[in-house]
């Protein structure tokens, strides 16, 4: 059983469409991060959210941390081909000194 489940697993959309990726868990997290990985490269950190209900925006990307700090979402407005990649959420369970745990990943393909 994965600690962090992402949905959808795959997403293929056309340029200009909007989309939302979800990251869910039954555990509470002290913080959640989102990474994007492009082919042939390692994942790169996009954002970290630490407060329940927090919303952060990065250009056309909007990240939200759930009020109970058990889930997060990533919304992309007017997707572009450059948004193509593997999106990974990751977090550390609250009250533990455990390692960062990654989600199952969402592969996004944006076509012209």
């Amino acid at each position, binding site marked *: 059983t994965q600690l962090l489940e992402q949905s959808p697993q795959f997403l293929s959309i056309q340029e200009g469409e909007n989309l939302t990726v979800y990251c869910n868990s039954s555990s509470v997290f002290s913080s959640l991060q989102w*990474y994007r990985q492009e082919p*042939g490269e*390692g994942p*790169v*950190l996009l954002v970290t959210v630490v407060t329940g209900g927090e919303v952060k925006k990065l250009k056309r990307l909007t990240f939200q941390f759930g009020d109970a700090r058990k889930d997060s979402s990533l919304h992309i407005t007017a997707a572009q081909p450059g948004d193509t990649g*593997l999106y990974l959420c990751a977090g550390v369970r609250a009250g533990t000194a455990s390692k*960062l745990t990654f*989600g199952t990943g969402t592969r996004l393909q944006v076509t012209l």
Partner: protein
Amino acid sequence: GAGVSQSPSNKVTEKGKDVELRCDPISGHTALYWYRQSLGQGLEFLIYFQGNSAPDKSGLPSDRFSAERTGGSVSTLTIQRTQQEDSAVYLCASSFSRVLNYEQYFGPGTRLTVT
């Protein structure tokens, strides 16, 4: 500044041979992670080093896999008697651990192909 580096970038080996993969973390980072990523899949945690603490080896898939971190810096992941199912990209990441909410910085990975 210099990021996380990994070597080699690509490795092709014959089944049954041993391989060593190297990771040079960002200077000053106390935590170092190894992950495995099969084609198009998410990250599979392998092992975690944190300062001088005993490493968390809970993700190593078999006793053919081992890793060490010398002097709190460079790490080597060793796979003995390689099998075809070991073919994957092996990623290394480092972080300041609890500082900056565990943000991880990844290397470009080593693509291992076992023939």
